[in-house]
């Protein structure tokens, strides 16, 4: 900031004045602080659609055993020694794992266009029952029709994320009709 000119300060009355005259110039230049932005995201390596379609009643409260997901991978575990860059004395086997993040969203399929539209919040949090075991604590959408529950998870921050689509039907309780294809 640069100031040119004269300043006369009178302490007793706490008054500060810029005194300008024919030969003095006042200039104040203010510089804004640097603006910032922050974005975060991930990349999906694959999308898997489950072949089976579950059916629930509209407005049904889902709980354990309804819309579930179990994350398992082929893991070398139980190793007790590390020799020449190789883990030894371990065994290979399937084991549940906890991803770095997991969420799910619900999508409704439009009958005419076959396009999906998001229903509600996009980053719903599942409930974990055990290591790597999750279920969706949701209420089945009220409008009857075909839906997809889309799980998204990323095992670690350095690997690609995955999406699993679990189709389900919200069945009418008889109050309103349900269009079909």
């Amino acid at each position: 900031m640069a100031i040119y000119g004269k300043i006369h300060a009178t302490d007793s009355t706490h008054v500060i004045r810029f005194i300008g005259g024919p030969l003095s110039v006042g200039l104040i230049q203010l510089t804004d602080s640097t603006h910032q932005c922050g974005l975060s995201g991930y990349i999906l390596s694959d999308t898997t659609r489950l072949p089976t379609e579950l059916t629930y009643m509209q407005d049904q409260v889902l709980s354990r055993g309804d819309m579930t997901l179990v994350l398992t991978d082929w893991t070398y575990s139980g190793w007790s020694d590390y020799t020449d860059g190789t883990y030894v004395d371990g065994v290979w086997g399937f084991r549940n794992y906890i991803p770095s993040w997991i969420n799910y969203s619900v999508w409704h399929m439009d009958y005419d266009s076959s396009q999906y539209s998001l229903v509600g919040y996009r980053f719903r949090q599942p409930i974990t029952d055990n290591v790597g075991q999750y279920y969706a604590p949701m209420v089945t959408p009220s409008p009857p029709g075909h839906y997809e529950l889309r799980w998204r998870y990323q095992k670690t921050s350095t690997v690609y994320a995955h999406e699993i689509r679990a189709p389900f039907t919200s069945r009418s309780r008889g109050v309103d009709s349900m269009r079909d294809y």
Partner: protein
Amino acid sequence: MFKAIMARNAACNAVIQLVDVGTDYSSAGIYLFDSTDIPLYQPDSSSPVARLAMSSPAFLDATDGTAYSNPITDNTAIRDATVTGFGVYNRDSTFIFGGTVSTSAADMILNPNIIYHDQTAALTSAYYLVP
């Protein structure tokens, strides 16, 4: 320099409202590039990796000098690339702001930032901040 929150919000809103400027029926978008020369890159003359459409309005009003984005639509990559830069373009495809992309210490954190053709890029959050 110190600014009142009211001034920070005003400065922030002035920038993010530029993102919604446009005369066509398109939406604002975030383009991913494999270059950091973002201001020089225009989507119509360069080769972006993917375009992720923003909502309308693209951002919520600023609070405490920070404006968070409304939902951003996922999209697939049109080619293999290592994403190193991004740009936010308004509805007229005019560059508004952009920055670097990396797996850490960048304006956009994308893990991993290597994307292959037809893989989906998804953004979970975005904000613009005036300190």
